[in-house]
């Protein structure tokens, strides 16, 4: 999860991101940031996450749980 949170912090240009942080509250959370994040997730975890999946994601850990679930199934 550390790599994932570090990449989120890099994309959002903040010092760090905590699992409970709400993604929509970050100033730089926009469609292009999401696109870059989904490309990272595909490359790093071989998991495809769609924009429809993102509708149910609120916090950083919500998305990570989805990655873990897809990665195992």
């Amino acid at each position: 999860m550390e790599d994932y949170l570090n990449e989120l912090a890099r994309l959002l240009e903040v010092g760090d991101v905590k699992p409970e942080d709400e993604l929509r509250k970050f100033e730089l959370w926009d469609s292009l940031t999401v696109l870059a994040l989904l490309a990272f997730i595909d490359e790093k975890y071989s998991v495809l996450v769609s924009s429809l999946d993102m509708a149910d994601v609120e916090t950083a850990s919500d998305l990570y749980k989805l990655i873990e679930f897809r990665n195992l199934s």
Partner: protein
Amino acid sequence: MPIKEPWTLVSGASSGIGRSIAMKLSGSNSLILTGRNVDALKETKKQCKPGADIKIWRADFGQPSEIRSSLSDFISHEDIEITGFINSAGFVKPEPVRLISCESSLLSTAINYFSPLEIVSLLVSKNPNNRALQKCIFISSIWSIGGAPGHTNYSGSKAALDGAMRSMAIELAPKVRLNSLSLGAINTPMARQVLNDSDLAEKLISKYPLGIGDVDDVAAFIEFLMSRGARWITGQNIVLDGGRSINYSY
């Protein structure tokens, strides 16, 4: 000196468009498949026409400074001449402009520009390829002509090769014909992120008057471009996009 059999080098042959091109051309051409993943290249070889002459040269386009010596050794070792080059290797990773770094720019440029250029340069040299190159096709993208958010390095590096292609076409004429194909969305693993997303895919497809393309659509055109029938076509960036780039609909 006996005339050597002509070989065609296909990069990015481990999947998608490159694999499909290899399968299509394998009936009439001796092929060298190249990419990073040897197992995937072997799988492409299996899918080529039975009895086709196929060799595998492993290369990492992310390391352009190693390309020349590696290919040179391969040509010498195999004692062959390469007369055709189809560059289907490509790298795209969406990235906002604010996050672009030298590292990310160099990786895009290494794969999409430096490495194919190194190959052409070697193939038109005396040693060891005996200046045998005659036909070259670069797979480019409509993002080299237009643009999209997050694709600065992809657009830039593909457009760089399209530009280089024109000067090479003049310098190397009449012996070598070079062209590039700017492709619209094709159903390949590279497009999986978008096509897997029903919301995005629907928006994307609606912009294509003829729908999104299939790898066979590209392979069929390449077969023509490599043939004698295309002997008067050089230095062109040809758009294959199902009408996407001329669609100004509301």
